[in-house]
């Protein structure tokens, strides 16, 4: 039963990392000069099965943070074409909402697991 709590905890951690990535994207949506001199590229978290460091154990983890290879936005600034990051704010908000809902679902699962453990413990009390 305690494994179930570990599984849900791994999901909470993964979803938080995903939300951090989304927050970074939104924060950098107007960054025209990244570290490499190019506009900032949108990033997204890729999830994989298994606990971090031990994929044979049930759970989930962020396997990598990928860069979106989509085209940059082109904005006309006083007749000059300026490249902006390939970030769509609507998409980021929808992703953030989805992430938040998934986080809530995992918190609910933790609550249910805790209630089940408590009920089992009451048998011996």
């Amino acid at each position, binding site marked *: *039963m305690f494994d*179930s709590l570990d599984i849900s905890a791994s999901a909470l951690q993964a979803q938080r990392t995903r939300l951090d990535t989304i927050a970074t994207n939104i924060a950098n949506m107007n960054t025209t000069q990244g570290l490499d001199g190019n506009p900032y590229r949108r990033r997204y978290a890729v999830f994989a099965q298994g606990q971090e460091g031990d994929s044979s154990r049930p759970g989930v983890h962020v396997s990598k943070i990928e860069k979106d290879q989509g085209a940059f936005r082109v904005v006309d600034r006083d007749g000059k074409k300026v490249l902006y990051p390939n970030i769509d704010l609507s998409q980021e908000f929808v992703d953030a909402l*989805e992430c938040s809902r998934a986080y809530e*679902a995992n918190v609910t699962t933790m609550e249910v697991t805790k209630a*089940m453990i408590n009920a089992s413990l009451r*048998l011996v009390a």
Partner: protein
Amino acid sequence: MFIQRMLNQTGAPALERLLSFTEARQGLIADDIANVDSQNYRQKDLSVERFQQMLRQRVDAAHNPAHNPSTGSSPAGADDFSDIDAELEYPTRGILFHDGNNRSMEQLMSDQAKNALMHQVAVELLRKQYQSMQAALQDKVG
């Protein structure tokens, strides 16, 4: 030995098995919910129907000696439910999304609620049985 026989005559072994089943199933549901955004993840579950069918057969066999006409008694191991194991299944219900995941959050949350209720029922019944047993033992001592 006496206590063991007394326990076996009640529904305690079947309820204990049900507790193990619901706890194992909760682990799988938690894994399914955790992996709701993982690519190519296929949902896993334990077959409730198959488990209940096996349990029903064993309970019938334990309570009906006629099942074993040669000896006229309960079949060997009929009181022991430890060998009843749940079968892992990969539900194909729901839509297979583009990322190869066949998630259905609504179904998962509903399964989780039902499983938790089943666990609660088993715990309450088991607790009642233990309480009755305790009351009987205290009367005997008193």
